[in-house]
């Protein structure tokens, strides 16, 4: 089942359109309201596979809300209503036949503040695996090593896998959370300001990790930090007051924005 993309979008923002074989997530006229207050209005964009797409915009513009909508975290909140479609690899995520826990396995999420569980490093990474299936210990150990290596954390923690995850530094905790998400082999990784609570060195490590991970999966990054968006993303979407203002290749959005509003925001002038 393919969700059609409306190329005849009347919004003034030009939509970067990807062919179905390159498109991972397609968001189609998606609107969302919290307790009657509109947070997202008629968004249409598609996210390319194996690329880093950044959502930027001022606080309250709806970029985190959009990110959380992609793995249906809003289901936990009963006062949220939505319309329109979000499709993952052509399948509507709100389809009644879509298994929401399976969706969340395929669409991993990393939050602003590191949230390791109160267990050992090993158990944190094994958490998602244990939910899926019973694996022989040997196999599970291999996956955990692979996930920690992918998150560039293995060398730092291999000697203390059974120590509490809460003893790690903030940057290590955030990489552990990424490893925990990678362990269930998702197709998409959503990162909600993953470095905003970290020091500059840890931030650089996370950014490097994001660049390295795009060979394995599709990444969507929400950030407040323009330089970070410019450094790591391939595509950038600028959101403002729940609407998509501009979307395109990062180079183009940052060096030659189509719209004055985008330029004002990127250059730090008050919009």
């Amino acid at each position: 089942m393919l969700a059609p993309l409306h190329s005849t979008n009347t919004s003034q923002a030009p939509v970067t359109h990807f062919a179905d074989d390159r498109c991972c997530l397609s968001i189609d006229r998606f609107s969302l309201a919290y307790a009657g207050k509109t947070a997202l209005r008629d968004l249409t964009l598609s996210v390319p596979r194996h690329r880093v797409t950044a959502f930027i915009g001022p606080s309250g513009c709806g970029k985190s809300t959009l990110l959380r909508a992609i793995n249906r975290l809003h289901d936990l909140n009963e006062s949220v209503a939505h319309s329109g479609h979000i499709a993952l690899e052509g399948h509507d995520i709100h389809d009644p036949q879509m298994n929401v826990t399976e969706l969340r396995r395929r669409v991993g999420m990393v939050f602003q503040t590191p949230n390791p569980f109160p267990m050992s490093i090993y158990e944190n990474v094994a958490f998602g695996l244990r939910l899926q299936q019973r694996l022989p210990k040997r196999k599970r150990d291999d996956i955990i090593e692979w996930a920690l290596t992918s998150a560039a954390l293995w060398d730092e923690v291999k000697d203390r896998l059974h120590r509490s995850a809460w003893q790690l530094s903030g940057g290590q905790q955030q990489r552990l959370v990424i490893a925990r998400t990678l362990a269930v082999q998702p197709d998409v990784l959503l990162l909600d300001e993953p470095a905003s609570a970290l020091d500059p060195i840890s931030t650089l490590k996370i950014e490097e990790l994001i660049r390295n991970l795009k060979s394995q999966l599709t990444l969507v990054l929400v950030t407040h930090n323009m330089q970070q968006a410019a450094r790591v993303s391939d595509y950038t979407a600028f959101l403002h007051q729940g609407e998509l203002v501009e979307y395109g290749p990062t180079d183009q959005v940052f060096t030659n924005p189509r719209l004055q509003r985008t330029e004002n925001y990127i250059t730090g002038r008050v919009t």
Partner: protein
Amino acid sequence: MNDRSASASSRRLHFDWLNSLWPWLCAASVALSLLMLGALLTLLVVRGLGHFWPANLEQVTLNSGETFAGQTVREVALPQQEGDERLYFTGNQDIDGARWRWVAIEEIAERSHPVDLIRLERTPWGDFIGRLAAIEQADQRWEGEAAWRHLTTLLALPINQRPDSQLLLSTANGQTLRLPLTNVLSAQAPNAMAWWQKTHAWGEGVWRFLSEGPRAANTGGGVWPAIFGTVLMVILMSVMVTPFGVLAAIYLNEIAHQGRLTRFVRIGVRNLAGVPSIVYGVFGLGVFVYGIGGSIDEWFFSDTLPSPTFGTGGLLWASLTLALLTLPVVIVATEEGLARIPEAQREGAVALGATRLEMLTRIVLPMAAPAMLTGVILAIARAAGEVAPLMLVGVAKLAPQMPVDGEFPYLHLERKFMHLGYHLFDTAFHGEDVQAAIPLVYATALLLVLIVLVLNLTAIFLRHYLRRQRGSEC
């Protein structure tokens, strides 16, 4: 403008003394509270534990020439006269007709501590204070020192192996009596004891207080059935209250729509914690004992009616009543624990593909476990000290049978039981011998405090252990 700021600063200067004083006021209230608590504990320890110390026996000769022996209890001022009077515990109720004697200090001519004075604990008639003249066993006879040595070896034997003997005793004023050995529980010669022997005897006395049943209408003996009843009732209560309280808290905090109704229920639960406990007792009596218990009797025990089985106060109904009483405590503590868990932890689990049940059982409940434990321990501490409702639903002054024994079904939920709090109340106010009851009251009170203290310490250590298990070492 200048005037106004000047007057403002002078007004502040006026209260400067308050600025330097308020920390002292706070410190003073802490100090006062600590002092009161310290005084409470000291009183209980000194009066409660001092009772078991084998104090020296005194032989007193009065100005009138009369002689008696006894143990000094306390001195008080004589009413409307100069001087003090002293209370002696003299025992020998069968001979003197009383166990206590008040003597004005002026009347005392001579006091001494002869080493051959002994104190026998016996039943009936309570303690004997005097001298051991001889022991007769069949045709054998021991006298003096040898008699005392023989008595200690006899008392070391188990009760059913002691030979049939007679003790020949004499009081300080020369009266004699014969006493069968079977009536003697223990014997002491405190004046001849070294301090380490006294310490040993004191330890034995404390142990017997803890391990034996009460005697002489709760004015003597120990409190073991009351300890057992209290602990058993509290355990049953925890088993009943924990699942209900935890499940209710999970519903209120995790499942229910957080609307006006939930808020109303929450306020209701918090208010229930403040309802006087006797009200729960009345409810328990009306609903559990007469309502449910009466029906059970009609359906299953109709052959023994009109004498009730479950239709009267008992262990089950007391535990149920206290479970109801402590339910709000468990709900509130658990709910607070659940509310403290960061949303990020829940979202983290859900974002990894956990269902709501998996999130609850694997992340939320383990994290809230210390709070639940706190709730249960608070409930236990409250239940262990509660007396008023129990008087209506099953506690007994003297329970003829323990609620647990070797007879099927081993745990007898319908039986009445003894409880430390009620035992304390009964000893203090319904005993026939008030002077004898006073030290037991202090000792029982100390025991109650200690039980609650031990329960709370267990909780603190368990909570600490659970936290450490999560925090540093997994």
